[in-house]
């Protein structure tokens, strides 16, 4: 892979060496530690991890959405469309957010403003980012609601968020995120608050939209089942770090990191053979009070070695575009 050249044309987002720290009254929390990844146009990257693994903070750091203080981005670069977002002015970031990069959050009720109509909230980015006239924005917002499968779109524009059901509200959120034809869509647990039958509707909608619009998507979730369905590539986070990264099928059939392996055996299945006893990952996730000097998973790892307590493994390339941060697969360092 060529290094040194500023941006690669086949990559729309390139994050390298991102470190985010929170200064709290109880000391520092190292939420994101040396996170590097990239994203190709049209690709759907699934980011999997438990609460506190740093998956959301990573994505919020990219776009300057974290309140600073207490948050502090200590180092890293985020190259998007030829410039570093971490060095960008607030004015430029504002243009990027909601314009070139769309966002969907977990809870559609708290991210929609209850006192404005859905139509108003849809028109806002169209007028602000794309400079559309009011009339053009009205037409476009109607189109967008139809795009995300809301029946009777024209009339629904005048409704307030509370008049929509949970699944419909999430469709509205998706419509707002798509309003300005983003190149990149970041979805943070967009189906977690929804029931499974509604989740199925949203997953189908997203797959369809991605086909039609061809944007790149980062899909954050704790549900391996969801990424198994929709993702092209999967990144597993633990303790603020990327512990494994691979194309979807490769990750599920050939997991290399002990955490990924354990995660895959600890969840019960709805189809196929039923396990008599669930495999347990003993212990608790790490407390990230200092920059990691050892493997974050070592206390819970069934294959931990003395070395794991002395040194934090870097990500090693295991072939097939697959890398894992574990000494068990030590070899060529992956240059992500």
């Amino acid at each position, binding site marked *: 892979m060529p290094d040194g050249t500023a941006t690669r044309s086949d990559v729309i987002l390139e994050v390298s060496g991102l470190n985010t720290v929170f200064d709290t009254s109880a000391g520092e929390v190292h939420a994101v530690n040396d996170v590097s990844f990239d994203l190709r146009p049209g690709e759907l990257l699934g980011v999997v991890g438990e609460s506190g693994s740093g998956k959301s903070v990573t994505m919020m750091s990219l776009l300057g959405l974290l309140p600073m203080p207490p948050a502090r981005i200590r180092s890293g670069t985020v190259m998007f469309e030829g410039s570093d977002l971490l060095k960008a002015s607030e004015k430029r970031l504002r243009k990027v957010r909601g314009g070139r990069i769309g966002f969907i959050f977990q809870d559609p009720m708290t991210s929609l403003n209850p006192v404005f109509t859905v139509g108003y909230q849809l028109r806002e980015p169209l007028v602000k980012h794309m400079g559309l006239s009011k009339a053009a924005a009205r037409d476009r917002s109607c189109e967008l609601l139809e795009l995300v499968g809301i029946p009777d779109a024209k009339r629904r524009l005048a409704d307030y968020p509370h008049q929509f059901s949970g699944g419909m509200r999430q469709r509205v959120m998706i419509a707002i995120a798509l309003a300005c034809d983003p190149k990149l869509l970041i979805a943070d647990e967009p189906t977690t608050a929804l029931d499974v039958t509604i989740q199925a509707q949203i997953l189908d909608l997203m797959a369809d939209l991605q086909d039609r619009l061809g944007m790149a998507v980062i899909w954050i979730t704790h549900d391996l089942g*969801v990424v*198994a*369905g929709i993702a092209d590539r999967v990144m597993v986070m633990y303790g603020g770090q990327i512990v494994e990264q691979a194309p979807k099928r490769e990750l599920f059939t050939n997991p290399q990191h002990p955490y990924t392996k354990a995660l895959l055996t600890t969840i019960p299945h*709805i*189809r196929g053979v039923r396990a008599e006893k669930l495999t347990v*990952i003993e212990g608790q996730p790490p407390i990230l009070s200092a920059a990691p000097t050892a493997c974050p998973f070592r206390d819970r790892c069934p294959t931990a070695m003395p070395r794991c307590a002395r040194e934090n493994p870097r990500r090693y390339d295991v072939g097939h575009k697959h890398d894992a941060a574990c000494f068990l697969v030590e070899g060529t360092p992956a240059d992500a």
Partner: protein
Amino acid sequence: MLDAPRSSPSDRSLVSVRDLKMHFPIHGGLLRRQVGEVKAVDGVSFDIAEGETLGLVGESGCGKSTCGRAILRLYDPTSGEIMMDGTEIARLPQTQLRKMRPIMQMVFQDPQASLNPRMTVEAIIAEPLDEHTSMSKAEKRERVLELMDAVGLNRAFATRYPHAFSGGQRQRIGIARALALNPKFIVCDEPIAALDVSIQAQVVNLLEDLQRQFGLTYLFISHDLSMVRHIATRVAVMYLGKIVELAPRDALYGEPRHPYTQALLSAVPEPDPDMQADRTVLQGDVPSPANPPKGCNFCTRCPQVMGICHEIDPEFRELAPGHFAACHLYNETSPRTEAPRHNEPTEVQQGDL
């Protein structure tokens, strides 16, 4: 109900619920008069055999938690019968109900909200002992430590407060409190929903171990169909206040009969890219329980809806031993079919002749 579900005739049922209804009034207007009611639970019947786990699944708002709470008489049910270990408790006055409390307990969803932040772990676990026993201080302390051992909490943490514990550990505190009085029956209301994936298995395994050790009977309420498949002996599926299907675990997951169960199971994403099922994606949303549709509750979303479904609420009947469902698709097994049937093979043959 004549054909009330039983797991098997030889099993002694510890809990037996018949036609339980829990309706909540809706007040409106200037005078706050009752203008309607939410039929949260609308006529459910089931038995839970001693030592088994009945899984109760369904989506949010289907009435599964209300059902669990009503069975423990945390609500006063609108109508129906609840036999708990041989005693009818649906209309038992509070003073007598109190004597029943030790045998029936509950584990709540959110361990953060269900533990008093100002009480130490020891005080939390000992509270049922304070209320229901005349143990001495030393005896209570001994019992608390015993319980902490049983649920895998370090004895040294007895004097700490809930905030010092992680979610999984807090849930263990809640479980220890539920076990304090040696109950027979525990309602577990989404006990793992608030926990991380890697912690869920720890808590579920603990519940299974405790069941074996103390011979507990569980009603396990959850929206997580994969986890229910793991833990439950039999499973009941609720939709809009009613049980639409009830069957032994393997029958329910292997051969779901009700179209809602089929759709629900197909909607669960499987963590395996090579085992993605053909999803039956249901259209629309669940109707309001304040205004359920006429006929079958599922008729507004059912992919196999028929004319009769908009007219008559299907009966909950046994399709195979222990396998119950409420659906008109299976009417042919019943002689009491009301709709005339024009396309019967026999008639066609007669026409040909």
